[in-house]
């Protein structure tokens, strides 16, 4: 970065960033590359001291791997040159002046009224509105090499759009085959992992190259229990799945504590690199009737997904945070979602937080591929990258999930 750009006010001092392994020898590096004499910060003692009070040109903050130095223009040039060579110098920047943000200054930070938002989104010939809204189409990631489990009503693997995908299928419902005769599971699997080319209509899958694992934990009639769901989670963990998408749950009364069982399992999954994402629930009747996030999405270590519509409003049914016992973490497209359906229908558009959840799971697969992040790191990457919305965080968490 050039050091005389127009922008924030600067102090005249310079920040130098070192590689993590080279902070011990940063004073020597500064001396060798630019003739700057700097002191390690621990030697200063506990009293704050300005550089002017010291006999050196700067201070190295060892824990940060950063030095703050007084440097002449030719010394800054020498440091800049060092960033391009073998020296352990990563970056050189002018130190900025910052101020406490006053209330008055905050008033100037409202976004420009003409800032493009993209909404209302629409299905196009090429792709569904949800894929446009999460920016899946512009992503260089495709989910290749990432294993995604969809725990639902199974999958109709005879669907032509899945013909080349070789999904792993397993039933945890006694007496039922993994094949989906309900439709819900085939729809969710399509949103998360549907392919790049489809037989007809727009593309609907977020992560077209992800490896698909469909665990049937809900019967063809749409019901299931903890034994099958936990069995499905265990199976997905044992298979090394990076992401588990669960468009299922049960509504709760306000102030209901989360399940210790699911929380423990979800934390173990995160520790092993498996992120569990679950639907927040559809029990709200907005604008006036709000219902809290359901089980098991209310567990802190399970990512709870709310639904928005194509105008980027909260879906009227989407559950909200319960400040006492569970919160919404993120939002995804969940109204009028076109995806795969068992043959002979093949396609259907339906709504629910169940439809928002696999959008987030698909983006998680893209993020896992693009960033190499798993578990809590993947959770953090999704949170950091989400687009903030002019909606309550109680309803949409950090905002709309966005592809890397």
């Amino acid at each position, binding site marked *: 970065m050039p050091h005389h750009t127009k922008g924030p006010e600067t102090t005249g001092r310079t920040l130098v960033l070192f590689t993590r392994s080279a902070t011990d020898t940063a004073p020597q590096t500064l001396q060798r590359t630019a003739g700057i004499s700097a002191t390690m910060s621990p030697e200063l003692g506990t009293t704050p001291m300005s550089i002017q009070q010291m006999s050196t040109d700067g201070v190295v903050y060892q824990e940060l791997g950063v030095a703050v130095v007084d440097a002449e223009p030719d010394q800054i040039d020498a440091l800049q040159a060092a960033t391009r060579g073998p020296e352990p110098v990563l970056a050189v920047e002018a130190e900025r002046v910052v101020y406490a943000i006053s209330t008055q200054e905050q008033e100037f930070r409202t976004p420009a009224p003409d800032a493009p938002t993209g909404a209302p989104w629409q299905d196009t010939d090429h792709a569904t509105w949800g894929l446009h809204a999460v920016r899946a189409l512009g992503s260089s990631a495709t989910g290749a090499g990432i294993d995604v489990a969809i725990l639902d009503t199974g999958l109709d693997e005879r669907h032509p759009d899945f013909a080349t995908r070789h999904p792993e299928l397993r039933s945890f419902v006694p007496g039922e085959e993994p094949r989906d005769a309900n439709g819900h599971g085939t729809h969710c699997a399509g949103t998360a992992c549907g392919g790049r080319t489809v037989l007809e209509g727009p593309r609907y899958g977020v992560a077209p190259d992800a490896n698909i694992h469909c665990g049937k934990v*809900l019967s063809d009639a749409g019901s299931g229990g*903890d*034994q099958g*769901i936990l069995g499905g*989670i265990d199976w997905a963990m044992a298979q090394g799945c990076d992401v588990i998408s669960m468009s*299922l749950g049960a509504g709760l009364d306000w102030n209901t504590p989360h399940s*210790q069982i699911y929380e*423990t399992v979800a934390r173990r999954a995160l520790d092993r690199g498996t992120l569990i994402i679950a639907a927040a629930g*559809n029990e709200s009747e907005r604008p006036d009737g709000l219902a809290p996030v359901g*089980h098991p999405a209310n567990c802190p270590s399970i990512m709870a997904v709310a639904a928005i519509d194509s105008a980027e409003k909260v879906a009227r049914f989407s559950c909200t945070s319960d400040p006492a016992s569970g919160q919404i973490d993120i939002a995804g497209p969940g109204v009028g979602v076109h995806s795969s359906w068992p043959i002979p229908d093949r396609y259907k558009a339906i709504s629910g937080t169940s439809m928002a959840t696999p959008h987030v799971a698909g983006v998680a697969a893209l993020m896992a591929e693009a960033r190499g992040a798993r578990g809590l790191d993947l959770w953090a990457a999704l949170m950091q990258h989400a687009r903030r919305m002019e909606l309550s965080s109680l309803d949409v968490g950090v905002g709309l999930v966005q592809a890397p």
Partner: protein
Amino acid sequence: MAPDEGSNIEVVVTVAPEDAAAVAGRLQDAGMEVAQTLSSAGVVTGAAPAGELAVLREVDGVLAVEPARDVELPPPGAPQ
């Protein structure tokens, strides 16, 4: 509706994943009918008398015991 204290209900139990098989054996000895031992998640599932959950919670290696829940998808046409 609360089940009768003596009738079996489905239960889910968290245990340390590395000890899952051993704890499942102790749960069986304590009166639980063990259905699955999930050694990746560290969960034992099965059935036990509704009045005996406190006994299972005292079994060595058990972290938590909860009655199993049911989930149900909404009817077609309703938000999913």
